[in-house]
């Protein structure tokens, strides 16, 4: 139960990092990654996974 970032398509804009309610997203070696241990798919917090909703490259997807 977690999301992941398809790094090849990521523009490294950081929009997802700012929206994640669980601080699951961080910049590692020049690309953003989701920590599956922290990601809850936003369940119980928002209607839809926030990272996927804000991502301009549509590259936040279910792992």
């Amino acid at each position: 139960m977690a999301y992941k970032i398809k790094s090849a398509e990521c523009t490294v804009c950081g929009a997802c990092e700012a929206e994640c309610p669980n601080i699951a997203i961080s910049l590692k070696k020049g690309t953003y990654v989701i920590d599956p241990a922290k990601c809850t798919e936003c369940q119980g917090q928002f209607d839809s996974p926030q990272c996927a909703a804000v991502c301009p490259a549509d590259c936040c997807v279910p792992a």
Partner: protein
Amino acid sequence: MSNVVSLDSIFGLGQLAPPAVMPAAPETASGCSSSSCGSSDGPADMDPAVWEKVKNHPCYSEEAHHYFARMHVAVAPACNIQCNYCNRKYDCSNESRPGVVSEKLTPDQAIKKILAVAQEIPQLSVIGIAGPGDSLAAAGKNTFATFEMLQKKAPDLKLCLSTNGLALPDHVDTIAQYNIDHVTITINMVDPEVGAQIYPWIFYKHKRWTGLDAAKILHEQQMLGLEMLTSRGILVKVNSVMIPGVNDEHLLEVNKAVKSRGAFLHNIMPLISDPAHGTWFGLNGQRGPTAQELKVVQDACEGGAKLMRHCRQCRADAVGLLGEDRGEEFTADKIEAMGFVEYDDEARRTYREHVESERAGRNASKAAAQADVRESIGFTVDPILIAVATKGGERINEHFGHAKEFQIYEVGPTGAKFVGHRRVDQYCEGGSGDVDTLDGVLAAINDCTAVFVAKIGGCPSKSLADAGIEPVDRFAFDYIEESALAYFKDYAERLGQGVVQSRAGQDAVIRTGALTARRA
């Protein structure tokens, strides 16, 4: 002239027919384009409090754009909407040009860069944050962190930011708190039906919205943000991207709506569309306007909010006077290598005093030149366009072959005024001129009667004359407006004698691609 909006010019907009005489668009390999920003008004017709705020801002005052430099720092990569003219691999094309990638900086790196540039370029007066995404997305964290530090370290620099407006109402108090006295909002529509063709989705209140809902929310937030800013006395410039067939006619309504809410300037910029940029518009064959189509809409809006015509659609990391970009001299690596940077505002203060005194004399001499023209020819001759090669300072001081852009002046019985600029490739890069580039230059200024230069070679001179554009170097290093008026007087006489022909009905090509202005 263009202060009066004729009904024809409004009703004619619907059928923006391709102009009668259209030069072939040049094949250009390298991607370079430019257009410039600001009000064409001087102190005479402006509220003194406003003039005080804008007189040294290159984007807000057309007069200042000849003298002052701006710098963008690209600290805001995230965005909260999707525009059909934008590809998120690149900079936001609201304020910056599509198809360019700016160097992203952290707020700390940005401060260091600003201080280094301020030491090097005394003309620097404004620091802006225009992306590369939206400066207020992601809660505007980097944007405000940068401004906060800057306000402490370099209080003499003016701060401004650009935004799509979606998150604006949430941040108006913070904007006021940091003394940000200029904000640019990109507003392309005031009707959600039009908006739905421009914005596929927005991210708002933890949700992705699409279609009419998205456009409606964006519109309401933009209008609310605009009103909140102007009611606090913060100057607002509105940018609109002109998209033929989508919002060209509609921009007149946008102009009215933003004017009635107190926007100080309206900047109508051409859509720059190219399949190579990978934007939705680019891939779907949506074209940008021609130079004359753009001018028709700009002229029609001129009775409303003041128009800015010198916007160069700069990169989100642009540095220098408008029309130039010295970003290359200040890359992150170079700044890092500089070590500790001292801050001292002495050079900038001296420069500002110099400009103040120079300006005083200018207004009188412009008025005299204008009176002379009116006396000798009356109002019988239609205005003409003149392309000018200039490096700044309101003078004709650039060699034809070195010009990376031409400033366009409209001159007629009511005076000379700046109406735009056209990006070109340097004709003479490294000595010898090349024919393809010259064709590009001719296409870019094809609607002009003359081109004013400091110097020009025999060969391009002949090609210009053959194309019906008169090369003029007799005003080398003189002031632009006075020279344009003197030329117009002479032109009117020659026209009367049938020696020259009017170029009415000609159009020109707006270059696609970005002003990267990499120095050779």
